[in-house]
């Protein structure tokens, strides 16, 4: 899907380039904005870029993946005007200016018939590292736990590892799926399974657990009270280019935030 979107983006960009680019010779280069970084932010940045390019057809926005660290590096090396990150910045990255554009909660989900309602970070760590193997340890029957992980390289997995696992490794017994949707599908079909997905993807087929007694919802994610919350950040050099700041203003505007909320994120306004 991502590839398809990029493809469509490119075609649109090319059409726009031929249709509008010819008239304003010379200014074409200054109209291209490159955004690179987190693969979790990528689909949202693509969506925003697509809509913004409709509003302002002279603008060409090129969205790339690569991961948060690579995005921040690209921004520092001026390979991209905006770097995106789905984790808080490290100490040595704080010289760059950062704007939190939205927040995402990582919801821990189980089957609706599962009586467990609350899970602690330690229990979650125990399950995913393969130490807690029975639901009895969480106050249900003595049934095996099947835990679902995301594939290597996924931004959501990266965030889960840093927020939950605390340098411990996720056991290789984990089932692996390559999208939020297919993780949800497994959980919805197997009463003994547990997994994690983006907050925006939850539906009636699955039940989100409270983590350390706090249920993920718009308020608890916005205020960071829900532990498994990650910021989606745009990073730019201390003085962003005119193009970059125009796009950032759009993202932070009422319209931009509404788009993000519609796509399942929690806005920051």
């Amino acid at each position, binding site marked *: 899907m*991502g*590839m398809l979107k990029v493809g469509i983006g490119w075609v649109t960009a090319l059409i726009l380039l031929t249709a509008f680019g010819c008239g304003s010779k010379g200014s074409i280069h200054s109209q291209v904005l490159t955004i690179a970084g987190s*693969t979790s932010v990528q689909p949202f940045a693509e969506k925003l870029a697509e809509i913004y390019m409709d509003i302002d057809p002279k603008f060409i926005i090129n969205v790339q*993946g*690569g*991961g948060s660290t*690579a995005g921040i590096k690209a921004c520092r090396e001026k390979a991209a005007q905006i770097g995106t990150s789905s984790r808080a910045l490290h100490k040595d990255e704080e010289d760059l200016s950062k704007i939190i554009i939205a927040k995402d909660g990582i919801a821990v989900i189980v089957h609706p018939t599962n009586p467990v309602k609350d899970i602690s970070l330690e229990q979650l760590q125990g399950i995913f590292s393969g130490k807690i193997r029975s639901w009895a340890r969480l106050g249900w029957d003595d049934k095996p736990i*099947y835990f679902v992980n995301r*594939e*290597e*390289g*996924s*931004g959501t997995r990266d965030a889960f590892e840093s927020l939950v696992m605390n340098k411990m*490794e996720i*056991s*290789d*017994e*984990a*089932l*692996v*799926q*390559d999208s939020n949707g297919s993780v949800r*599908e*497994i959980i919805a*079909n*197997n009463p*003994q*399974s547990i997994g994690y997905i983006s907050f925006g993807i939850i539906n009636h087929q699955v039940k989100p657990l409270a983590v350390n007694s706090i249920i993920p919802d718009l308020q608890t994610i916005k205020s960071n009270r829900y532990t498994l919350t990650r910021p989606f950040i745009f990073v730019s050099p201390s003085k962003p280019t005119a193009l970059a700041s125009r796009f950032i203003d759009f993202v932070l505007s009422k319209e931009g935030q509404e788009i993000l909320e519609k796509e399942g994120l929690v806005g920051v306004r």
Partner: protein
Amino acid sequence: MKEKVIEKILTLLAFSAISILLLITAFIFKEGFPLILKAGINDFLFSAKWAPTKGHFGILSMVISSLAVTFGSIVMGVPLALACAITLAEFCPPRLLVFLKPTIELLAGIPSVVFGFLGVILLVPLIREYLGGPGLSLLAASIILAIMILPTITSISIDAIQAVPLLYKEGALAMGATHWQAIRLVILPAARSGVVTAIILGMARAIGETMAVIMVAGNALKIPVSILDPVRTLTSTIALEMGYSAGDHRTALFAAGIILFIFIMGLNILANALMRKK
């Protein structure tokens, strides 16, 4: 004159198809081979620790899973396919055969994602409820693959059986053999190389299948110890992780592709050699 031109054009087209194959081969090796050297052939082939973003590139568990899934599908698929081929070639009235053979070949045209979907909806819950485990398992993948390789093995086997000269059969019957004895003792041995070729082509299809396997196999990286354990094949890994891979992770997937390529090439060469022997 005109004939010559058309001949040249056809030759050119044939060579372009072959050159594409060569190009793909060269590309896979160029991309993947440096990583095998970098990781060390031992650590690449004989380590089961796969965490390419953290510098571990062991594909042992995937190789084992790929082989196990293929073996499982052969064990279940071959008896079925052979029984089917013998029935259709020997016991079935010719008018019915004209209708049944294309039907079985049609099975090969069903997209693999449909098989995978059926597996997830029907097979996986059955395995989970009656046999235990997460349902997504080596067994589920083997059963789905067994169905998928059925048409390949059946139709090539039918051709092999029908290619046995009628004289053999008549001779056997004249010696007092029953129909079944003639099949078991004369026709099948005579058709052996064709049947074995069919099985090998079926194996190549099974080891290369991706979508259906991803959907029903569970994709856990652990080396399976039971048929109810989830497994991750080589093809699944490539398809699952290519989306967000970069740098060494990406080349590691190409390296896994090299191993897969070697497996499939080996099976095809074997199949070709057997066919020629006949």
